[in-house]
């Protein structure tokens, strides 16, 4: 496919040539050579020296700063690409070229510096380190939740969902219930929900959660008071729940 370069490439009337490609830095790649020059004569050597020796006095410090109006002094590039009917750029990628590129990219794929993603490319996607850390933390919490799902405390849960059902027993009630912990972020809402669930079975329960204490069994099999720990700790280790009548 011939690239129709409709661009009007800037032709500088003062013809300050500035193509360093002349300097015989031979690209191995003949394909690229065909497309981008070379097409210059030795007179350009003098021109280039002229440019390098541009009147240094004129160069003000303003040029080091933003948006300097002095920028116009700097020479423009010459038309780089000459098209004739014989050029067929980009017809086929030079296989040798491709090889070089692939190996270069392959060399840069490494274990993304502790990104937690084994096949990651360094610095991709472009998010700052501290954001990556935040994402990781949140993924850990979600992984715990999903771990619950995998441990069998699932009630119709699909792998893709984040639901986290655990068994709940209320003291004095024969039939246990199940509650989806992923719907809750605090003990308040959880105990409210649980009291609602059990209301029909317990006369003593006037939707007053102060009558009952919530306890949970953790991964080690120990029973603990839920209110003793932060929500985050609770959610990561809870296996099952129990509502105990609080005595006096």
């Amino acid at each position, binding site marked *: 496919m011939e690239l129709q370069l409709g661009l009007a490439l800037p032709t500088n009337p003062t013809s300050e040539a500035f193509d360093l490609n002349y300097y015989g830095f031979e690209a191995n790649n003949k394909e690229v050579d065909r497309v981008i020059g070379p097409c210059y004569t030795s007179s350009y050597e003098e021109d280039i020296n002229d440019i390098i020796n541009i009147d240094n006095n004129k160069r003000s410090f303003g040029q080091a700063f933003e*948006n300097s*109006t002095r920028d116009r002094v700097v020479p423009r590039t010459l038309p780089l690409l000459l098209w004739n009917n014989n050029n067929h750029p980009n017809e086929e990628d030079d296989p040798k070229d491709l090889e070089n590129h692939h190996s270069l990219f392959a060399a840069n794929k490494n274990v993304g510096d502790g990104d937690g993603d084994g096949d990651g490319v360094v610095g991709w996607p*472009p998010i700052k380190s501290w954001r990556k850390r935040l*994402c990781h933390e949140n993924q850990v919490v979600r992984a715990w939740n999903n771990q619950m799902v995998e441990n069998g405390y699932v009630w119709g849960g699909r792998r893709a969902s984040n639901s986290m059902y655990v068994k709940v027993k209320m003291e004095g009630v024969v039939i246990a219930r199940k509650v989806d912990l992923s719907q809750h*972020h*605090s003990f308040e809402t959880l105990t409210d929900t649980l009291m609602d669930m059990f209301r029909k079975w317990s006369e003593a329960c006037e939707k007053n959660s102060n009558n009952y204490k919530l306890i949970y069994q953790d991964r080690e099999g120990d029973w603990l008071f839920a209110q003793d720990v932060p929500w985050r700790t609770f959610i990561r280790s809870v296996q099952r729940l129990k509502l105990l009548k609080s005595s006096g």
Partner: protein
Amino acid sequence: MMMGSSFPEEVLEHVFSFIERDKDRNAISTVCQSWYEIERWSRRRVFVGNCYAVSPLILIKRFPDVRCLELKGKPHFADFNLVPEGWGAYVSPWIAAASTAYPWLEEIRLKRMVISDDSLELISKSFKNFKVLVLSSCEGFSTEGLAAIAANCRNLRELDLRESEVEDLNQSSGHWLSHFPDNYTSLVSLNIACLNSEVSFTALERLVGRCPNLRTLRLNRAVPLDRLAILLRRAPQLVELGTGEASDLRPDVFSNLSGAFSGCKELKSLSGFWDVAPGYLPVVYPICPRLTSLNLSYAATIQSSDLIKLVSQCHNLQKLWVLDYIEDLGLEALSASCKDLRELRVFPSEPFGVEPNVLLTEQGLVSVSEGCPKLHSVLYFCRQMSNDALRTIARNRPNMTRFRLCIIEPRTPDYLNHQSLDVGFGAIVEHCKDLRRLSLSGLLTDRVFEYIGTYGKKLEMLSVAFAGDSDLGLHHVLSGCENLRKLEIRDCPFGDKALLANAAKLETMRSLWMSSCSVSFGACKLLGQKMPRLNVEVIDERGPPGSRPESCPVEKLYIYRTISGQRFDMPGFVWTKDENSALGLS
């Protein structure tokens, strides 16, 4: 200029004092010698976009009485760990020079620089009228340096540590915040959101209580909500607030906080919300209608429905930063409710996941582009895109000035027709004539660069990754984009030809970054030799480039214009033109 010389200097100086923009001041200075002199003596604010482009000595020689100094150091890709540790951007020579030359310095703003505790101490002791310290994405200092600032800067108004890495040397009672003296009352803005450790709450409360002009307070994660309520009651005049962590939902805290927030009649900007229990969100509902800026991008616990409830009440919102939990549905709600929206950033909640975890697609962005007529600045992470969507967005929002799209998987094609996204991005540059910043992603050929070179006439900054086929791509950009200042490229098949052919262009730009491309060491040598006003830095951690064939591509390349020649603080993995180095003329 005959006319100019008939005005006394004082008159000219007075006139110049109304002129603040660097561009205008630079223009003034070129009129004639006397204007140059008057202007340089009266310039108070200097911005150096690349700390290695000019030296402190040159700066001081030209501008003897600077009050506000802003410096930027590492290239942008340093944010993504592409610049090795120890590369440079040390601010200490600047502070050392300024400490003697600019005793009246009031403001220092640094971005991506390395600043030590010693420098912080020197700042605190050298500038009697020091007012503003902003350290954006900086590193190299600890809470000890902050303690020096607190203790010695009697006139400090602003201390902003945005996104910097601060080492915490937690001395038990010597907490840095308590170093602010009891009679210090001039704080206007404090941003410590990036601090990982706890701050002394008593010191914080007392500080907030005695500074009546405090308008910005961005707390760090470690400040719990019940403490926040106390602070809000002490500072109801706050305009900008960043909360701390808020995970445990407790009714007493909830009601306390509600009360506190209702007293903040001036609050316009909110951020923070780490781990916030969604049950707390109603405390901010009363302020939502006044909010112009909302940053929920740390709030991984708030899902779509709660986000929708929240943003639907923010009718005056101008800026929203949010996680992709907002999903397409949330963005649709945003476009319906927030007609004044100017800036949107959507960050990925699971950037390394292969499968999408949320229902966020190109559609969300299209909705917002349709519904928000003032939207001009976008940063959007997503997993699929189409040329159609990009065309629609371009047509909807010709006023776009900053467009950064990150399709998470490199080289992802248009998901509808599996073609490249050349045409889509082409539409963006064609329709958005004022586009100044663009970041590309997805499957892209040389063609997209042709479009960019043709239409991107106002483009100042371009970020490219995993794109293009050949040097033509790079050539289109370098030869076509007249206003290009910063170009950063990674993992593209761009080599020597385009770079060498456009060598002169590089002197009109601030900098060029190329990593994992195909630029050979030989080309770098040539460029370095022939262009004395460029520093051509080869960053290569594989050892001396001279030990490999000249045709071997370099790992990373950073080229920037400079009038102060080679820098003297280069680490071992950076090679430049030097008589003794392999890059020299031998």
